[in-house]
């Protein structure tokens, strides 16, 4: 299987402390890959590296065949930041129209993504008056506007109601079936089963990679929370 993202021996130092300790991983094309790990495990730093926003200390990061951060990638990679990057003094429509103009997509892309993230009816509302979950959805919508080949989504489903969460995961899989690659982070293990493949990150190191079924089989655990704990224990026993 071809890789959309290839990371080799990635080391990142933030605030004088190494937060990623030599990560090696591959993300498959056309699949939904979950990046799971507790808060502070380095998920956001890893995602910032993929979109070229992070200064790295060492290692190679190749995205869609190019070095991460290459200008040509900016139109091919969509990024949803963890904290919503939204202009709170603009309406939903104005926020998305601005990003659509920057990305060179038309008005129909704005209407389509507003529908996808379930904000229909809120178009004229000022972003500042929306809830945290709604703000996150505007932020997600900006990443979906130009239907990029690679979507890097940092905790897109936090704080959403279960119905919307299920719908968004369905959307993610539809996008993957259409050929897009998705890297989706979450600190909630119950979302792991919705992913085709999983990357488990803990304290800046990759604990395990594989499909949910593989990880369960490897640890003999019935649910992924237990599998995660099993992997943590095993890693502790080795070191």
């Amino acid at each position, binding site marked *: 299987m071809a890789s959309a993202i290839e990371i080799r021996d990635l080391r990142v130092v933030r605030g004088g402390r190494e937060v990623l300790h030599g990560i090696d991983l591959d993300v498959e094309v056309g699949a939904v890959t979950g990046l799971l790990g507790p808060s502070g495990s380095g998920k956001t730093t890893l995602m910032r590296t993929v979109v070229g926003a992070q*200064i790295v200390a060492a290692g190679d990061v190749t995205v869609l065949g190019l070095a991460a*951060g290459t*200008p040509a990638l900016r139109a091919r*990679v969509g*990024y949803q930041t963890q*904290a919503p*990057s939204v202009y709170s003094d603009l309406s939903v429509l*104005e926020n998305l129209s601005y990003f659509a103009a*920057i990305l060179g997509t038309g008005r129909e892309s704005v209407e389509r993504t507003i529908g996808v993230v379930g904000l229909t009816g809120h178009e004229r509302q000022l972003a500042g008056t929306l809830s945290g979950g709604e703000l996150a959805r505007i932020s997600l919508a*900006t990443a979906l506007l130009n239907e990029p080949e690679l979507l890097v989504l940092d905790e897109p489903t936090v704080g959403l109601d279960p119905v919307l969460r299920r719908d968004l995961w369905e959307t993610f899989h539809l996008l993957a079936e259409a050929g897009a690659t998705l890297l989706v982070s979450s600190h909630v293990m119950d979302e792991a089963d919705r992913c085709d493949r999983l990357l488990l990150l803990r304290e800046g190191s990759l604990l395990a990679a594989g499909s949910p079924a593989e990880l369960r089989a490897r640890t003999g655990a019935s649910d992924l929370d237990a599998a995660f704990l099993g992997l943590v224990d095993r890693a502790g026993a080795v070191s």
Partner: protein
Amino acid sequence: MSARRTGATALRVLAQLRHDPRTIALLLAVPCVLQVLVHELFRDREQVFQSLGVPLLGLFPFVAMFIVTSITMLRERTTGTLERLLTTPIARGDLLAGYALAFAVVAAAQATLVSALSFGLLGLESGNRGAVVVLAIANAVLGMALGLFASAFARTEFQAVQFMPAFVLPQILLCGLLVPREQMAEWLQAVSAVLPLTYAYDALARTAEDSLDGRFWVDVAVVLAVTVLSLALGAATLRRRTP
């Protein structure tokens, strides 16, 4: 750079302002109120108003745009919209030019209103009213460019607001408005000579004459050069990759 992205950014900044009518009202009303105050203050000394009125008219937009831009840009930096934008195909020049365009529009409105009031109701006189309005807009863009650059050195809005007295007040004190430059101590003259507002003030003062001399155009050239330099320095502070 692309005209579409620059234009979209300018429209976005203007839309943000449109949602904030109180700021618009303050931007338009405060300079008018101040100009009336100066007029009333020197009611019996018409000469003083005549010599202060034109430079003040041209300097209000400078101060206002410095503050508005440094805060707006700081917000882009701290709320994450800047980092998000810089992962898109937008050029840093698009972003800066968009800001410059939007605030030039606001400055034009501000300068037109204060000019209409000053030249119309308050009886201010000038040989070149058109030049005064154009200079006011140029000064606004200069203030914007300096504010953009200054915003890189502020972490919080408290700090950004303090940059107004730190960056702007010394320039107003030393530009020649309060004390003619030739009456200043030599070292003050030397400092004054490297501050951009000195040239902006000098150009405004020279519009009182009917014909604009060579020195006027030197002043204008300096203001434009400093604006371009600040925008370039401001662009250098917009980093796509951060620690």
